[in-house]
């Protein structure tokens, strides 16, 4: 059972298509008669649209329609779901163009549809609106008193001494801030929608879940799911923003129905800041207690995050604290503050990336307080079993990871005293952090078709937002069947394929990969029954048989064998605590005069089970660390709260790392199969690549300078002012 050998490193099976432009993204599909949608958005943050003048726009050349709250076609599913809300905020649901109410700045107030993009853009500039402004709140710090426990996440507490963090011999109390971060993948969000009749909808979408998009659209228009075709074969990055089908995408489908024409929306970069979610601004308080010799006795971790007035977005910012360390007394709380903002959504390392910055910074702070090496402090408080669930880990190779990573970076060779190391004028610092994320496995289905020519086609309605899903799936099929890579094709991004979950939560290889494994295993059984076998990279007659694959199929009047298998985890899921782990080591340079921080070297070790696809896995780690560098040093969505508007909603002013910010990133994989997660022995990886990295950098900055910076990103002004 399972695959026990190391995987060979494959090139991306779709790499050539991507770099030659052959890979088609949603906006590139050419549909005859396509029309173009441009959104006009609210200039105020809260209130109502008093008047909206669309006459000039409607008369502009090429304009087919301008939809506002006054004439937007009804979306039957939305109407049926009603407007009552049970949110702690008491807010009402957001129904785009459903009324004149403005719930957040940048909310669409009109859709302009024209025969060319340029004409739609021009006409959109001719729409004018007046507003009745109401007072708004977008600043979490000024609305903390509205913090409420989210319905979906209660408080957690273990231990008999709830006050241990306050009464311990060594105490740490600190507050940490993670700002708004936006996903902003290179490919802009949007949709291309067209109808046949009034009950068959086809969309080309940018989505992390074709089935999820199918369900959302089917329920919005009250049509059968089978009547919604969703295509999303290539996605130019998602980072979580594609885990929802956004209201404006549904609205475009409604416009297409009304106009009886294909309509395409490609959002602007500015709109990517307000209409497709973000990592919520979160403030965290950690109170930690330890004995003089470095044994943790109590941790209190409270996170307060923003959400929209109309939704109770909740994420696991305090999850890691519950189980990461063998601490007898732990209390965690998560609070949300409803603000006049669009709704957040999961962003790479959702919750944990925010929480790990606080927890792993606090661990570093406490290690210095008790005069221990931060690595030794972590080992001293190592949790051998999951203290939250009182279950064994399915696998936990953190100790080996700590050792490998620390050796590679030269941890022991550093002078551990803060502000003690220099390279010319630059201060040198080393920092480390742990990252963790649940090793999830969902239900997934895969169809296999073995053709006469011996090629194997696999299909599943999953997505590939960049990690190399097809490559990993081909690799698994290759390992089960022995067929050569070039004879296997994995097809995804089509909702008509057998169902799979969305690509999120680092679960695709575990979930879809298991279905691929199972369906290939089932195919083996079918071949056996037919007197055939996979033998040395080809389908051959079984021992004692003489009919070839072609002969057998021909005799059965078939052109292919096919089998579909659904796969999900079993009872082992309840017996073990399943997590992926990462250890990040960062070496930084800090300039004492300018406050500039440069990440000089990175060693990242992943304990994510058996590595299915070594090359794409390494790429994913490098990408995650790059995102981590952004989180640590550069990324912050800045809102002017007087207006409720972003003041850096473009990629010149919202700084993601450029190549010059990213040093060589050494990725190390423990590469040991987890016995319980799935047949491949793999665990997820996309999230842990980023989770914790920001703390490693902050800890390195402390080591370099003696300055503890608890608010991300660590920009030169903060270093100078600390």
């Amino acid at each position: 059972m399972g695959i026990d050998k190391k995987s060979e490193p494959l090139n991306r099976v779709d790499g050539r298509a991507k770099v030659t432009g052959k890979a088609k993204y949603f906006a590139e599909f050419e549909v005859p008669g396509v029309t173009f949608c441009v959104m006009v958005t609210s200039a105020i943050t809260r209130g109502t649209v008093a008047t909206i003048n669309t006459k000039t726009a409607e008369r502009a050349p090429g304009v087919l329609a301008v939809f506002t709250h006054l004439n937007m076609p009804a979306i039957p599913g939305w109407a049926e779901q009603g407007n009552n809300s049970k949110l702690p905020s008491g807010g009402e649901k957001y129904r785009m163009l459903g009324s004149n109410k403005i719930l957040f700045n940048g909310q669409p107030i009109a859709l302009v549809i024209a025969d060319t993009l340029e004409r739609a853009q021009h006409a959109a500039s001719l729409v004018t609106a007046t507003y009745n402004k109401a007072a708004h709140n977008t600043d979490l710090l000024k609305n903390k008193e509205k913090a409420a426990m989210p319905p979906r996440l209660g408080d957690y507490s273990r231990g008999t001494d709830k006050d241990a963090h306050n009464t311990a011999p060594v105490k740490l109390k600190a507050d940490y801030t993670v700002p708004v971060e936006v996903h902003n993948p290179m490919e802009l969000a949007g949709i291309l929608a067209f109808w046949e009749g009034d009950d068959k909808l086809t969309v080309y979408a940018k989505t992390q879940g074709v089935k999820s998009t199918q369900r959302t659209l089917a329920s919005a228009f009250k049509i059968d799911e089978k009547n919604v075709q969703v295509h999303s074969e290539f996605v130019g990055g998602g980072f979580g923003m594609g885990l929802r089908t956004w209201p404006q995408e549904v609205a475009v489908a409604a416009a297409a129905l009304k106009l009886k024409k294909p309509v395409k929306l490609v959002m602007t970069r500015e709109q990517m800041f307000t209409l497709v979610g973000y990592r919520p601004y979160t403030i965290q308080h950690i109170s930690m207690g330890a004995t003089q010799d470095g044994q943790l006795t109590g941790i209190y971790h409270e996170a307060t995050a923003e959400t929209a007035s109309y939704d109770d977005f909740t994420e696991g910012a305090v999850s890691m604290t519950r189980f990461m360390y063998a601490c007898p007394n732990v209390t965690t709380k998560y609070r949300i503050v409803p603000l006049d903002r669009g709704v957040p959504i999961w962003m790479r390392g959702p919750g944990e990336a925010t929480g790990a910055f606080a927890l792993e910074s606090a661990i570093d702070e406490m290690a210095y307080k008790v005069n221990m090496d931060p690595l030794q402090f972590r080992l001293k408080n190592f949790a051998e079993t999951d203290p939250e669930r009182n279950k064994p880990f399915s696998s936990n190779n953190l100790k080996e990871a700590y050792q490998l990573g620390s050796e590679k970076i030269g941890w022991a060779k550093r002078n551990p005293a803060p502000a003690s190391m220099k390279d010319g004028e630059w201060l040198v610092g080393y920092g480390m952090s742990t990252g963790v994320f649940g090793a999830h496995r969902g239900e997934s289905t895969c169809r296999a078709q073995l053709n006469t020519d011996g090629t194997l086609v696999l299909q599943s309605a999953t997505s590939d937002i960049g990690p190399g899903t097809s490559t990993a799936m081909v690799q698994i099929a290759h390992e089960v069947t022995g067929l050569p890579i070039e004879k296997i094709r994995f097809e995804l991004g089509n909702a008509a394929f057998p169902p799979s979950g969305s690509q999120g939560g680092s679960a695709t290889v575990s979930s879809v990969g298991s279905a691929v494994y199972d369906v290939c295993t089932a195919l083996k059984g079918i071949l056996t029954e037919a007197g055939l076998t996979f033998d040395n990279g080809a389908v051959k007659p079984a021992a004692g048989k003489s009919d070839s694959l072609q002969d057998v199929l021909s005799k059965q009047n078939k052109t292919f064998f096919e089998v579909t298998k659904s796969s999900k985890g079993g009872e082992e899921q309840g017996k073990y605590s399943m997590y992926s782990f990462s250890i990040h080591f960062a070496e930084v340079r800090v300039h004492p005069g300018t406050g500039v921080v440069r990440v000089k070297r990175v060693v990242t070790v992943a304990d994510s089970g058996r590595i299915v696809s070594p090359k794409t896995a390494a790429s994913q780690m490098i990408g995650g660390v790059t995102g981590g560098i952004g989180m640590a040093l550069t990324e912050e969505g800045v809102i002017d709260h007087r207006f409720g508007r972003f003041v850096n909603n473009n990629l010149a002013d919202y700084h993601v790392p450029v190549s010059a910010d990213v040093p060589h990133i050494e990725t190390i994989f423990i590469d040991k199969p987890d016995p319980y997660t799935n047949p491949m022995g793999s665990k997820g990886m996309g999230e842990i690549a980023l989770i914790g990295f920001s703390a490693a950098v902050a800890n390195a900055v402390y080591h370099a300078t003696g300055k503890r910076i608890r608010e991300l990103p660590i920009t030169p002004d903060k270093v100078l002012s600390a």
Partner: protein
Amino acid sequence: MNQFSYVRVTSKESAIAALAKDKTAMFLAGGTNLVDLMKSGVTNPERLVDINKLPLATIEETKTGLRIGALAKNTAVAENDLVIKHFPLLSQALKAGASPQLRNMATVGGNMMQRTRCHYFYDTAMPCNKRNPGSGCGAIGGFSRMHAIFGASDKCIAVHPSDMCVALAALDATVIVAGPKGERKIPFGDFHRLPGDTPQQDNNLQRGELIIAVDIPFNQLSANTHYLKVRDRASYAFALVSAGAAMQIKGGNITDVRLALGGVAHKPWRLKEAEAWLKGKPATEENFRKAAELSMAQAKSQGGNAFKLTLAPNTIVEALKTAAAQA
């Protein structure tokens, strides 16, 4: 973006005439800033006069210095042997700006004409006296982290975003412009304006004038130069503070020096007082520090940019130190 007409001209005269007869017309060179402004609805010319075919892209040596044509691309200037030999500071400053793709399109004249990157200027839903005189300054009391510490007014605290202009200000360049009334010369330091009560005017060009070239006089400052740009990431970000320094050092003493800052004012900020103070003194960190402190006498924080009061002098010191350390 609004509809506009487009005309390509091939001579200075026709360019100037095209602007003279149409008040809504603007010159188009590299377009790296103007087109963005048009897309944002900040600038709405009804006619673009494309000057890229004018023969103004040459870089040539004159008796007294280098003459750089207004249409010379930023990349061409940065990589020009004469520029690197005589004015390495200019090459360094250009390479610190934008990205290779932008520098391949952007011209010298266009770089001088680029407008502030203040977000309130770009967002037409926000107040901005530069875009819409009388509407107020959004940055005052708002997001002022990137903004001016020198020469700001209660109407505008925006900064000029150019790196190239910092070097040209330091190098005593002269701008040659042509207009309906003929040619004239503007000392570089007088080209850009402080905001005062008319922040809508970035510079002292008259309506219809065309930048022809920039003259840089030869100097003895090429051995010890450094352009230091402090920013939020290693490349492709506007300066928090930048400093251009060029020195002549003999026997450990500074015999001549040029110093200017970027990212701190509505124009490139030449530090003549510090230059005068440094002249004749030993090239030591202590002296650099004193000169830097002297430079900050008039500096004023807007709140969000208070760190620049520390960062600016530190950047001056680092730029001078690095320049002095050149072999």
